[in-house]
């Protein structure tokens, strides 16, 4: 699971929607008997706690890709161990995130410079975040199938906790 679900302190400024642990998704995992494995936050160690909100294009540099590839190697190691033990794996990301989005990321090729933009979400587009792309590449290189995915949808307009829970439950319930 994405780092911030267990640690909202890793969020970009103004992005933490609770003190520490975002429990709705954790609760589902616990109820269904799933083991929890936390991934590192790609943005925290790279751009730091004082980073600005950003879209994919602002992070899509060779240096950030190298950073994500390093993290992806560590995460792929974890996944490989679990797959070797015959365990089922599901990837829980953060929808709308430039790095952790699993089906929705953020994009705006013109964004840059002085960080002023209106609230709203015109930057949301279908696609994966940069870390998730690097993880897909790493798992593919090892011949490991990419896990089923679901995501925290707090950043998505119309977010509804019950709908999010239903998606996570359905994803967990599918055959691995």
């Amino acid at each position, binding site marked *: 699971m994405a780092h911030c679900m267990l640690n909202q302190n890793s969020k970009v400024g103004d992005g*933490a929607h609770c003190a520490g*642990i975002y429990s709705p998704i954790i609760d589902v995992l616990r109820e269904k008997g799933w083991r*929890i494995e936390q991934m590192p936050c790609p943005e925290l*160690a790279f751009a730091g706690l004082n980073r600005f909100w950003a879209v994919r294009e602002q992070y899509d540099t060779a240096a950030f890709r190298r950073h994500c590839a390093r993290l992806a190697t560590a995460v792929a190691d*974890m996944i490989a161990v679990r797959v070797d033990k015959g365990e089922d794996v599901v990837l829980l990301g953060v929808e709308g995130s430039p790095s952790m989005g699993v089906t929705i990321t953020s994009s705006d090729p013109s964004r840059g410079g002085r960080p002023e933009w209106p609230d709203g979400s015109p930057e949301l587009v279908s696609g994966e975040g940069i870390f998730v792309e690097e993880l897909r590449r790493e798992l593919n290189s090892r011949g490991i199938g990419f896990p089923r995915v679901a995501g925290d949808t707090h950043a998505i307009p119309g977010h509804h906790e019950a709908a999010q829970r239903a998606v996570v439950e359905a994803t967990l319930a599918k055959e691995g």
Partner: protein
Amino acid sequence: MKRDERSFRVALLADRYVNPPAGGVDGIAVAADAGWGVMQLPADDYPAAVAQRLLFEVAEQAEEFTRHGYDLVLVGECDGLADALARVGLGVPDAINPEGPVVLKEFLDARPVPRALRRADGEAG
């Protein structure tokens, strides 16, 4: 936009408190109740090389939190953590090996106000 809700408190949790065995201490439940975020430490069944890579990333993130005045504690034990933290200039934070949830909750609740929060409130720190 609503106020940022972060607690500026992060617990490094050994895996047995994240994925507790039957009868074990549910560190996630306690941390959630106490308003702490969690960084999970590698499970004991990972090969040393895998655990080492994961601890490297944990340490880099811990360094960022510490530099910004977040409170950091260790719950449980993890081989290799001290070395990983030392590589980024950190010592092992205050730690506890709780035998029950009440002890863990008391430990977390008794921590001093994080330096980052004291700064935000205008105190010297």
